[in-house]
């Protein structure tokens, strides 16, 4: 089951390394560790801090200040902000609900095809951002297969409805994974206790299960809220007249060439993004009442009664059917001239994609993602090692710094890169950095794209690394040290091999993420470096859905193939993660 690799990463992030107790205290940093910290810091400053600082300076430049001043005074901008917030709220609510329905069915109902349902729920994680939107347009758009051809409706899917549907379907897997993890770690003894006190299943659900999941709901809602307001691809494809902050920033930069205004819009996007990240990470997780450490005392009695199963399974089944239909549309659409209009079978779409521009983009994207992934993985592991084992004072700050690449909305990151790296970095007369991004950038801007991939993917490596390291007895490190190994030797010969499974699953996720990301790189792609996701966008823009579908299937195949390969590596039986 290849997709299961994603499980540990998508599960709730461990809280930032808590007190490791007295024994971890008073450790002195050896010079080698200090050098490593220095190098990592320099990388982080270049990859994330500097672009963010440039967004700030641009936003507060003269024309940026104008945009900022108009942000709440002009009615157009007020509408955009309202739109963004409404979209975030709706997607947060629906996504969490769908995620919970799937998770509850998975964890507590008895039915056949659980594994299949699990895979269906994870499908949106590995697919490029347009697959859902484009398929939804084909199915439910003005000339949609279902709305128009089947039901004869003149239905307009563009706008808030379409966006909410697409974004909820795209992002609910995050909520699903989080809530499933929580439901599974709830101690069954609590259900048993409630039931022996006279509560029936429904009463247990309302008075025991739900209240314990409230922090989980809150944290999922917030995560989805941020994902939704930060998304750029879908508002461009299916937003119609419904403008949100991210699409407004995109228009400002690509249409009006007003970088300062774009920076200002993205700044408004950045603040809630960071705030929610902080709240989610440092509050919601701490409030969690789910006991992870306790040994489950028994197993949950699955719900078998029809009254309990039928309503939920119907809802979940319908949504699963919708997801399957959507992806079937993508696959069928890729082999059809114009799905819904001219349904003749053709290979022309694949021919277009696999030759010329398409194969260029495919090749470049895969290569760049393959370059970025190991860098991100190793960097993430080093960060995790520093956070869990080395740095005591300021480890929370280091953790936050490392997670920034994920906390910052993609659109903001992309604009930051465009602002920071499109021109050489010059102080006085000395050129400190050549232009890294854009057509004039070195390697045709490919370096900047790798940088984006790295900073965007590193946090998932860091997160799984922290989780893995916290399970490894610190005495193992100390044993190595006392046998004469320096801190770096210990990392190389002991720590790294032990966290290899976490590293690999982090890498898998990082790769999938890099391959399917659009918002951060759309601002820095150049004619020389074609990236699949931005190619898909232009195909969708041009109305060539067939090509877009072909791109999407190929992208999904590449991602699944790499995940499968990584899985084979993880299966190595010699690796054990835990001491004793």
């Amino acid at each position, binding site marked *: 089951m290849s997709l299961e690799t994603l499980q540990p990463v998508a599960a709730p992030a461990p809280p930032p390394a808590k007190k490791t107790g007295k*024994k971890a*205290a*008073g450790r002195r940093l050896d010079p080698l560790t200090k050098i490593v910290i220095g190098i990592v810091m320099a990388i982080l400053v270049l990859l994330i801090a500097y672009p963010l600082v440039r967004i700030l300076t641009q936003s507060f430049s003269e024309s940026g200040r104008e945009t900022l001043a108009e942000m709440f005074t002009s009615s157009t901008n007020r509408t955009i902000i309202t739109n963004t917030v409404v979209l975030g709220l709706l997607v947060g609510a629906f996504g969490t609900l769908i995620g919970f329905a799937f998770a509850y069915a998975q964890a507590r109902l008895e039915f056949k095809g659980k594994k299949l349902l699990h895979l269906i729920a994870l499908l949106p994680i590995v697919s490029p951002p347009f697959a859902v939107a484009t398929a939804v347009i084909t199915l439910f758009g003005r000339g949609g297969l279902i709305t128009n051809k089947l039901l004869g409706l003149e239905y307009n899917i563009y706008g808030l409805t379409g966006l909410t549907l697409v974004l909820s379907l795209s992002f609910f897997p995050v909520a699903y994974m989080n809530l499933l993890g929580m439901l599974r770690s709830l101690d069954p003894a609590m259900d048993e206790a409630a039931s022996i006190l006279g509560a029936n299943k429904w009463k247990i659900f309302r008075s025991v299960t739900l209240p314990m999941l409230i922090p989980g709901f809150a944290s999922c809602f917030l995560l989805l809220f941020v994902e939704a307001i930060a998304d750029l691809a879908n508002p461009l494809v299916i937003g119609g007249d419904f403008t949100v902050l991210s699409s407004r920033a995109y228009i400002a930069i690509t249409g009006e060439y007003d970088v300062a205004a774009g920076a200002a819009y993205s700044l408004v996007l950045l603040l809630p993004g960071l705030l929610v990240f902080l709240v989610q990470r440092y509050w919601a997780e701490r409030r969690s009442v789910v006991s992870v450490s306790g040994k489950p005392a028994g197993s949950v009695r699955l719900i078998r009664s029809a009254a309990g199963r039928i309503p939920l399974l119907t809802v979940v089944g319908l949504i699963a059917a919708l997801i399957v239909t959507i992806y079937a549309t993508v696959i069928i659409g890729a082999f059809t001239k114009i799905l819904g209009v001219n349904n003749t079978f053709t290979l022309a779409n694949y021919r277009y994609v696999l030759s010329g521009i398409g194969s260029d983009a495919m090749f470049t994207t895969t290569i760049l993602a393959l370059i970025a992934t190991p860098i991100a993985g190793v960097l993430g592991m080093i960060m995790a090692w520093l956070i869990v084992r080395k740095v005591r004072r300021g480890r929370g700050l280091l953790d936050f710094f490392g997670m920034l690449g994920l906390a910052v909305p993609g659109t903001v990151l992309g604009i930051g890169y465009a602002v920071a790296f499109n021109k050489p970095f010059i102080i006085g007369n000395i050129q400190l950095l050549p232009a890294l991004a854009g057509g004039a950038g070195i390697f045709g801007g490919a370096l900047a794209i790798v940088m984006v991939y790295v900073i965007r993917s590193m946090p998932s490596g860091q997160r799984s690394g922290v989780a893995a390291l916290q399970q490894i007895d610190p*005495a*193992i490190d100390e044993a190595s040290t006392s*046998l004469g190994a320096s801190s770096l030797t210990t990392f190389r010969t002991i720590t790294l091999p*032990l966290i290899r499974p976490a590293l690999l699953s982090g890498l898998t996720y990082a790769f999938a993420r890099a391959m399917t990301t659009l918002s951060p790189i759309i601002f820095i792609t150049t004619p020389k470096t074609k990236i699949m996701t931005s190619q898909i966008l232009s195909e969708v823009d041009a109305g060539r859905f067939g090509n877009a579908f072909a791109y999407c299937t190929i992208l999904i195949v590449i991602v699944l193939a790499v995940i499968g390969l990584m899985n084979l590596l993880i299966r190595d039986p010699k690796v054990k993660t835990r001491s*004793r």
Partner: protein
Amino acid sequence: MAQTAAQAPAQSLASETGELHLDHLYKHFGAPDAPAAVDGINLAIRPGEFITLLGPSGCGKTTTLRMIAGFEQPSDGKLTLDGEDILGLTPDKRPMSMVFQSYALFPHMSVFDNVAYGLRLKKTPAKTLEQEVNFALASMSLTQYADRAPNQLSGGQQQRVALARAMVMKPKVLLFDEPLSNLDAKLRVQMRTEIRSLQHKLGITSVYVTHDQDEAMTLSDRIVVMRQGRIEQVAPPTEVYRRPASVFVADFIGRANFLEVQNHRVTGDGEARQATVSVLGGMHQVPAHDGVSDAQPATLLVRPESVSVTRIDAVNHAEVQIAGNVGRILNSVFYGSWIEYEVETQDGNITSVVSDPAPEDIMDSGTCVEVRIRQERCWLMPAQD
């Protein structure tokens, strides 16, 4: 004392290095005004000596060990090995090996690779390496497990691997951090014996942390009893047991009866220091601690095995007055190889242990008895502050 003499030959086999000096070692965690975890420790460990740091949890014994290993940096003080200051050395540069409570075996390496790890870091030539690892494995009866992964071994075997891994480095000092506390009781006793005989054979200076007094008593040349970051007493096991420096030590090691004593008279000095005390309605000549003086309140330590009880002749035990050395049994508990009585006396409740009791001699609660103490086995020390 006799014990140290008996060990003299063993020590002569030992290398002449591994002399460890702890000089006013301090360790503060957190706020500077918080109580010190280790509060100024002085300790001179002789080459080849087996030293046990013993105390309740939180007494600073583990912190002390970790400072010796280099995993903690002392807030103040000096640490020398064979006269050389080693505080500036990181743990990997100190010629010491450590055996951990959790074994800390590398789970991704075979038993052989675990033991070979340190030697490989030292760039030991392949042939020597193999010989030494195989020798270490053989001496721990692990040869047949060389290719196993650690998690395929039992707890006792894992601890043997940890020992072999530490030994093979031929360190000047071996450090043990409660290495037996994860083993079951029988295995613990067996490993205890093995560690002791191994250390005798190799003569490596050893510092062993434990909260288990049996381990401390059976393993050590000298025991360091710690309390709240300070050393209460450093002495060979017999002395710690018979001549404890304080009520705390007496209470921590073995079982003890404490009798409050007044109007005692002290004579003599050092070994010959004695006191006349009046307990259980009689005068007793008992050895006394240097810190005891006539004016200060004092406590008499009487070990349960130094108390004997004999049934008195009386028609109705319930009517017997408790006075002088006559007491009444409150509890009588049979343990198999010994029986334990709790006796109410005029000086408080006293526990008496009788070993190898004959079934017909066992007395029930309510029985009145004459209580006798072996005065030369008692110990008078200053009352607890």
